[in-house]
């Protein structure tokens, strides 16, 4: 018996990642304007956060309404380490990762005793508390006045000054992240995470320590968010606590849910759809005859969101992947049975 069929979804994802890599490389040559590059830097950053969230939400089944906090921890770690203390930016990124891990442990241990709605509320509360820290610890963060003058990212003597360099590093990280998650979900750890989602009592009965594996998922997603935050800070060079408010966590959740949390691609798809939709509404709403768009964009966005989720409750990629894999395999079985007869 060979493993060809078993590794099918793994391979499919690998092809997808390779294709994505190709697209990432040729994309800058196709677009006429730098604006798209910067838009895709943001998409890439959101994609990193959401890919991490997919591990936590889609695979492990644990909801988080506080991921902006980890994003913020990464951003402020980089800002403070490289902007305030003039240390190498790479150290800022690493500091962010370390702090995110520690904070994830601290919040995860008590929170993961809770489920569903209560977990959602606990993570929401955690987000508000981290936000308050960023806001009130003015000597370190600059408080609500914001933190500006964050130097560009720099590694091994190369300074990231223009959009294109950020575009490449952000998408490189995203591609590596997708590859990492794809490896992970097709492994012992990934199966352990998925089994927690499937049935906690059954997972325990085969020796899976629920707390340990939930924490692993949270830490992975926290690290992803923190790294994205660090690069956001270096790219924009100005941050303020309001960027990491509850609303940002909700936006991440929206991306993951519309993208489809059960698929590897859900996070990235959600990020693309979200940013794209907001962009399109900005262009389209005025065409419908409304002068200042803001409020209409919000209304349209809300309506689209609700309609989308009513018809595709598992998100776009979720429904699609399910259909694709399930149908093709059912066909296989039928073919074989037919052959046997």
């Amino acid at each position: 018996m060979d493993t060809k069929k078993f590794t099918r979804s793994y391979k499919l994802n690998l092809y997808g990642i390779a294709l994505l890599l190709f697209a990432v490389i040729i994309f800058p040559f196709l677009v006429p304007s730098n604006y798209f590059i910067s838009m895709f830097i943001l998409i890439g950053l959101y994609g990193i956060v959401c890919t991490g969230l997919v591990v936590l939400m889609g695979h492990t089944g644990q909801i988080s309404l506080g991921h902006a906090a980890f994003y913020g921890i990464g951003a402020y770690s980089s800002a403070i380490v490289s902007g305030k203390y003039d240390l190498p930016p790479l150290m800022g990124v690493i500091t962010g990762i370390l702090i995110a891990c520690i904070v994830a442990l601290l919040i995860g241990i008590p929170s993961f005793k809770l489920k569903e709605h209560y977990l959602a509320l606990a993570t929401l509360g955690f987000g508000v508390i981290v936000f308050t820290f960023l806001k009130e610890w003015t000597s370190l963060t600059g408080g609500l006045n914001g933190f500006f003058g964050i130097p560009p990212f720099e590694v091994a003597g190369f300074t990231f000054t223009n959009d294109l360099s950020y575009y490449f590093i952000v998408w490189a990280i995203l591609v590596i992240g997708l590859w990492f998650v794809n490896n992970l979900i097709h492994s012992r750890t990934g199966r352990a995470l998925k089994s927690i989602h499937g049935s906690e009592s059954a997972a325990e009965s085969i020796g899976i320590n629920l707390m340990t594996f939930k924490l692993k998922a949270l830490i992975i997603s926290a690290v992803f968010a923190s790294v994205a935050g660090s690069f956001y800070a270096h790219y924009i060079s100005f941050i303020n606590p309001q960027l990491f408010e509850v609303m940002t966590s909700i936006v991440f959740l929206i991306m993951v849910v519309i993208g489809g949390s059960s698929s590897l691609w859900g996070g990235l798809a959600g990020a693309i759809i979200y940013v794209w939709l907001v962009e399109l509404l900005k262009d389209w709403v005025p065409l419908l005859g409304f002068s200042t768009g803001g409020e209409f964009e919000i209304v349209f966005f809300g309506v689209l969101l609700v309609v989308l989720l009513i018809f595709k409750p598992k998100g776009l990629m979720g429904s699609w992947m399910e259909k694709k894999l399930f149908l093709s395999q059912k066909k296989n079985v039928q073919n074989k049975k037919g052959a046997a007869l």
Partner: protein
Amino acid sequence: MNLLEIKNLSKDFGGVQAVQDVTFTIQEGSISALIGPNGAGKTTVFNMITGVFPPSNGTIMLHSKKISNKKPHQIAKEGITRTFQNLQLFADMTVIENIMAGMHLLTKTGVWNAGFRLPSAKREEQYIYDKSMQWLMRLNLDQEAYLPAGTLSYGKQRLVEIARAVISHPKLILLDEPMAGLNHNESEKLADLLLEMKKEGQTFLLVEHDMDIVMRVADHIVVLDHGVKIAEGTPDEIQQNDTVIAAYLGSEVTI
């Protein structure tokens, strides 16, 4: 040799005595059955053995090592796995993934090795896959290996659940009403399978209502009623035990 020793096991839920002073042992390589009318406390005993909740009193020893008060995943590590009365498959995972997940305790690839797909992780993945596939073929489920487990028939799901419990070479497998929901034919086949695995040295403890099957497969039977052990012995002994008959008659079920 004694595999599992249960001594003076009791459990009360806020004053309600669910299990009282139950003592019995399980021999290695045997099939034992825990029977009794509804509400006799069988599932409570199961839950105490598997660590779902701790006993109020008494001890559980596995190979003379105390395992009471451990958590479910620690109990699994000690070598006791189980199936559930109401199937607990990972419905969204494929059949083979379900069984592969059962190998959790035999393998050790962590996040780092898995995430970067280091050679050790690859090797282990191949090992897990091969072994799981062997089981699927043995159970005649290899055709369905790549279907989501939730789409299988009830009987097949039951088999997958048992395969998931058995694949990690546990010392003891607890089966909670394995025959529930199966038709006569399926039950007989499953009974054959259990006997076959017993021959290979596997120990089982099952809770079961289908007395024909129990009498056929069990070497040793423990009867509970209202949380108290009322009889213990071979199938023949139990069938002739007056107390057991009375208890079952009282609940209008005949053996």
